[in-house]
């Protein structure tokens, strides 16, 4: 039984823990008591958390398996880089915070439009077919980005397809990707984006529209007989997730000095899906934890050198086995039952 009260508590705990972590990490950064590798990973972690939360909206809440989520991140990343470069070179906008904000907004909007265009044909499909077609669209996005050249000349943006002879400074250089990006993304901005996406997704789930999305997932025919326009609500979830992925992409792109289009391949889509599945399908706080943990883990496993990804895979399998083991589940339940309140048990499953 998942009551409204326990849901509210879970949400409050999620927001509280995130704010606490942000404060602690900020203090550690100021004290310089944080390792260089972890500090460098903070912004990517924020992006991946937003990616996992937004994909969970599609996979967990709306119940459609999308395998092209990294494509939207790529669109957001390159849009963000273009907007940031354009504002800096064309309008001499030096203020990095404002530029970052505008870049993230633009990344979200363009990715949202792409999500809508792709959603129209894709959301007519169901199940495996939808998964395959989203996978294909993700790859198409990546390959198109591989051929696009964009340069800024004064205040005009020039762009070419498969043709790099453009006047002015090149922002996107086809397969070479974005080069000499001014890294203006900050950890604070990342944290704000995480909170923003969390508020959007959690508030959406607990509203009229969110209930309609879940109803369409649980029982299509019953939802239609209750007067719910299935396509509209599937689209709402898909486009919202695309917008958030685009914002995460813009943040990610502006935290890297160079960025290749091939970064946003099928592999990354699967990676995000792994975050979602490991954190629990439909479980938003779980997505946050698993996205953070699984971004840090490969770095921590660097001492294993060539066997790093092998160890990563084995660890994933072990976690999956353990989290589904009835003995472990019972143990966890026992520990929490001793505390004597139903709510904490609910958090485990929530």
């Amino acid at each position: 039984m998942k009551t409204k009260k326990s849901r509210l508590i879970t949400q409050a705990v999620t927001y509280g823990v995130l704010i606490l972590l942000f404060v602690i990490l900020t203090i550690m950064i100021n004290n310089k008591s944080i390792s260089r590798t972890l500090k460098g990973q903070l912004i990517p972690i924020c992006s991946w958390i937003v990616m996992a939360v937004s994909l969970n909206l599609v996979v967990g809440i709306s119940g459609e398996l999308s395998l092209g989520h990294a494509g939207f991140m790529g669109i957001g990343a390159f849009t963000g880089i273009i907007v940031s470069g354009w504002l800096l070179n064309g309008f001499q906008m030096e203020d990095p915070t404002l530029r970052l904000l505008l870049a993230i907004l633009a990344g979200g909007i363009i990715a949202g439009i792409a999500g809508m265009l792709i959603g129209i044909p894709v959301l007519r499909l169901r199940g495996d077919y939808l998964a395959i077609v989203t996978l294909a669209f993700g790859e198409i996005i990546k390959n198109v980005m591989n051929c696009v050249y964009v340069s800024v000349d004064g205040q005009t943006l020039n762009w070419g397809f498969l043709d790099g002879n453009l006047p002015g400074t090149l922002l996107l250089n086809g397969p070479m990707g974005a080069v000499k990006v001014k890294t203006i993304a900050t950890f604070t901005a990342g944290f704000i984006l995480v909170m923003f996406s969390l508020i959007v997704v959690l508030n959406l789930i607990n509203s009229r529209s969110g209930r309609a999305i879940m109803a369409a997932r649980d029982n299509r025919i019953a939802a239609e007989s209750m007067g719910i326009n299935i396509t509209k609500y599937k689209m709402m979830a898909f486009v919202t997730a695309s917008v958030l992925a685009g914002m995460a992409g813009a943040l990610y792109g502006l935290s890297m000095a160079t960025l290749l289009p091939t970064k946003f391949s099928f592999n990354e889509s699967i990676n995000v899906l792994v975050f979602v599945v490991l954190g629990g399908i439909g479980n938003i706080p779980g997505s946050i934890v698993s996205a953070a943990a699984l971004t840090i883990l490969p770095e921590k496993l660097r001492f294993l050198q060539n066997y790093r990804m092998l160890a990563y895979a084995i660890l994933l399998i072990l976690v999956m086995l353990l989290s589904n083991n009835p003995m472990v589940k019972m143990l966890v339940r026992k520990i929490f039952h001793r505390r004597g309140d139903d709510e904490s048990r609910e958090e485990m499953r929530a």
Partner: protein
Amino acid sequence: MSETKQRQQTPMVPYPSKSFVPERDLGNIPVLECNHLGIEFGGLKAVDDFSVIMGRTEIGGLIGPNGAGKTTIFNLLTKVYQPTHGTMMLEGKDMGGMTTVDVSKAGIARTFQNIRLFNNMTVEENVRIGLHNQIRYGMFNGILRLPKYWKAEKEQHEKTLELLSIFDMAGMADERAGSLPYGAQRRLEIVRALATSPKLLLLDEPAAGMNPHETEELMENIIKIRDQFQIAILLIEHDMNLVMGICEDICVLNFGKIIAKGTPAEIQANPAVIEAYLGKRKEAEA
């Protein structure tokens, strides 16, 4: 049965060439009018020449042996299937070209033979899905939690509890719908359908799996719903006690065709109905 006979006070009057409607509904446009409705699945006529008429506050019954096409008719009325022949009118408005969603908005709600609740959602959320088009606010109101959100959510909550209390289920509002006992799930489906504020309520075997006591309670409640909401109810049921007890007009179906129409007393005496249910007496038998 004396008690059930008292319930049928309004005399039934014939409606030109279609069926019977209660006398009290004569002045109003019939809530439902089907003319020669039919559907073919690749040559197989699942429903053929189905013509009925239903009064504003009539309780109608649809009976027939298994596979007679009763649920198919519900699926036609709610446009889960598009009919291949004939027309339907809801309060005089043609339903051609409507989708399932349009039908719900126009005022037909239904329950399902094999319960289709939103199992992972709470009882309250299930009813709130029924209120989806009744108490509305947009996506941005929901995300930004504007005053409209709080107002509409409160309104939905109150309305939900009010509807649940019809079946004394207000105390279960926070339970997961999938974990309810079978009878309660059936009742929740009716509440959810009522939440869409329908003009015509279609109940597909509402008493299936209920014990005689629960069935008796359900009968009282169906009449209560009709009186309170002033709606028409069409039900499919195999429990003849229920059908004969509360239906004012009954339509018997066999192999997709109407074989008899009339009041409960007429249906019980109709030889074609007896034959459809029990088979023909062998002539050779001595």
